[in-house]
């Protein structure tokens, strides 16, 4: 049974059907082999792009789908149920477009955004550095003004789609002064001086390349600076508020997939003469898994509806990311348990789900950092 979804219009219902069709036919069968071989599914991302899924939340004047976050995030969840790498690709791409969409001038938006959201191009988001992860404001990549250009030099770390993306949204330091000295740039993949490390050998999501990005005197025209000089860190954090909702939705989809696999296995597998789902110890574990997935979904949808209504949602986005990813970790761990020995081998997907869930507690702000955001908000604004 597909997850029952709120469909504000019949077209959104058709959109969900389309995503399920593409997911079942093109994503699900390829996930296992591609994760084993580590091949980035560029063609799948193209198909996703041509289907209009790489610009869903962006305005229609630039070629986006003009959909509320509530709809876009459910699409991410449906994709993640079938292949987390692809859902992450869509989410990171959407994140990389955000600074231009939200802070670009009318001219900048008109010039670059249509190609970025129409699905032919894919993007990467370069904030983290080897020595600036959780403390991103400590980044040291420099952008030095030289006439009508900035010259960017430094090393970015952990860049999803590094070496594969067509454009890189890069945060670099235009002056000292901590978080106020950072600016944001839109760097095309063919810029001279841009190069990439070999993909990290990760625990999971191996079809999604993650690399170091080296900037060696990369010349970027001033017209490719997004927002004012010094606005970069605020832009990065606002982009992450939206990005975290994407991760919450992806984690929910991963949990949903683990739950579905576990329920069908527990109905089939018999021990002591009966299906294991009828042993209360297993049935209750499945009930807790369902509760964890459904509460994760409710949280990201609550945060999304605040965002869609134009209300502040940073706090809710952090709560959703924290709970949804912690829940996904627990649900995928329990899924391995439900499968017993079969959960520990690669013949079933739950072993992979378990490995994929872990990173969701880490990227786009570790869950410690989410607690920091929530605590600061409580300190400043109360409950």
């Amino acid at each position, binding site marked *: 049974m597909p997850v029952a979804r709120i469909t504000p219009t019949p*077209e959104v219902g*058709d*959109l969900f059907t*389309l995503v399920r*069709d593409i997911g079942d036919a093109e994503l699900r069968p390829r996930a296992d082999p591609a994760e084993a071989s580590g091949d980035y599914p560029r063609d799948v991302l193209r*198909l996703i792009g041509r*289907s*209009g899924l790489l610009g*869903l939340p962006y305005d229609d004047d630039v070629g986006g*789908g003009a959909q509320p976050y509530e709809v876009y995030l459910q699409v991410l969840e449906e994709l993640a149920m079938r292949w987390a790498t692809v859902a992450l690709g869509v989410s990171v791409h959407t994140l990389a477009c955000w600074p231009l969409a939200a802070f670009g001038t009318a001219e900048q938006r008109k010039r670059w955004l249509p190609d970025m959201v129409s699905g032919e191009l894919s993007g990467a988001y370069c904030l983290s550095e080897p020595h600036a992860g959780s403390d991103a404001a400590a980044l040291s990549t420099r952008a030095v003004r030289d006439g009508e250009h900035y010259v960017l030099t430094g090393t970015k770390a952990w860049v999803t789609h590094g070496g594969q993306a067509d454009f890189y949204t890069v945060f670099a330091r235009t002056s000292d002064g901590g978080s106020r000295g950072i600016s944001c740039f839109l760097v095309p993949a063919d810029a001279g001086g841009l190069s990439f490390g070999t993909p990290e050998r990760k625990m999971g999501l191996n079809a999604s390349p993650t690399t170091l990005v080296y900037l060696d005197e990369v010349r970027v025209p001033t017209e490719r600076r997004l927002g004012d000089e010094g606005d970069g860190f605020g832009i990065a954090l606002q982009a992450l508020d939206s990005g975290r909702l994407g991760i919450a939705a992806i984690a929910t989809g991963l949990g949903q997939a683990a739950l579905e696999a576990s329920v069908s296995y527990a109905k089939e597998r018999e021990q002591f003469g009966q299906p294991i789902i009828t042993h209360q110890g297993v049935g209750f574990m499945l009930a807790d898994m369902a509760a964890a997935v459904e509460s994760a979904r409710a949280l990201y949808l609550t945060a999304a509806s605040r965002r869609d209504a134009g209300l502040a949602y940073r706090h809710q986005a952090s709560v959703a990311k924290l709970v949804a990813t912690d829940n996904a970790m627990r649900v995928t761990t329990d899924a391995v348990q439900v499968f017993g020995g079969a959960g520990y081998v690669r013949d079933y997907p739950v072993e992979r789900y378990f490995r994929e869930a872990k990173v969701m507690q880490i990227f786009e702000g570790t869950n410690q950092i989410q607690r920091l955001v929530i605590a600061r908000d409580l300190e400043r604004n109360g409950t």
Partner: protein
Amino acid sequence: MKIVVLVKHVPDAAADRTFHEADHTTDRVGVDGILSELDEYAVEEALKLAGSESGEVIALTMGPEGSADAIKRALQMGADSGVHVVDDALHGSDALATSHVLAEAIGKIGEVDLVLTGMASTDGGMSVVPAMLAERLGFAHIGFVGEMSVDGGTVRARRDSDVTETVEAATPAIVSVTDQINEPRYPSFKGIMAAKKKPVESWSLADLGVAAEQVGLDAAWSQVQSVTKRPERTQGEVVTDDGDGGIKLAEFLASRKFI
């Protein structure tokens, strides 16, 4: 170039399909309907041909209310408009009546260069409607086409049957295509949004000047007397190999007259 593509709404083959008890017609209410998968190839080919010749693609279906979904799917894929022939009197129509109604509808659309269809519907599966239509319309008919092109008023097509033949016909022509001809596209979200605004006309038998007595269950040339469910698959026989597995296999096959 004006292309009519015939689209049929059929019960999803992946679901459990049943028949009405009273008249043995297909139960179209109890299961999810979809655009017949074989027709998707016709839609795709129509869109490709129209795209390269700046043509117009009209999706035509005959069927009860819900079958408008087949048109919707074609519009979401990129067709320009739709025509839905819907009338209570059509219930139970056979291929002859269907071809009669569709021929009238194509005549009413008018000035059609090409009619594209799938090679069969995934429910009835008779594959006769295209030929009947061609006969009624006086169009050339090329069936089971795996590759085609249109140049001016000439259709060139590769027919895949026991032998492979390449044939030509003057337009207007009706061509049924196989699942080898292309890879049907998915709709896009833009297509979904655009489909909402595309025109779909709904025609009754009266609009087409067809009398109710000429169609429907009573006018059908054959009647279904009874339907029987395919027996449940039974468990196969497992041969355990105790060194004589090959002999046992051969004995089994011989006992069923396979060898």
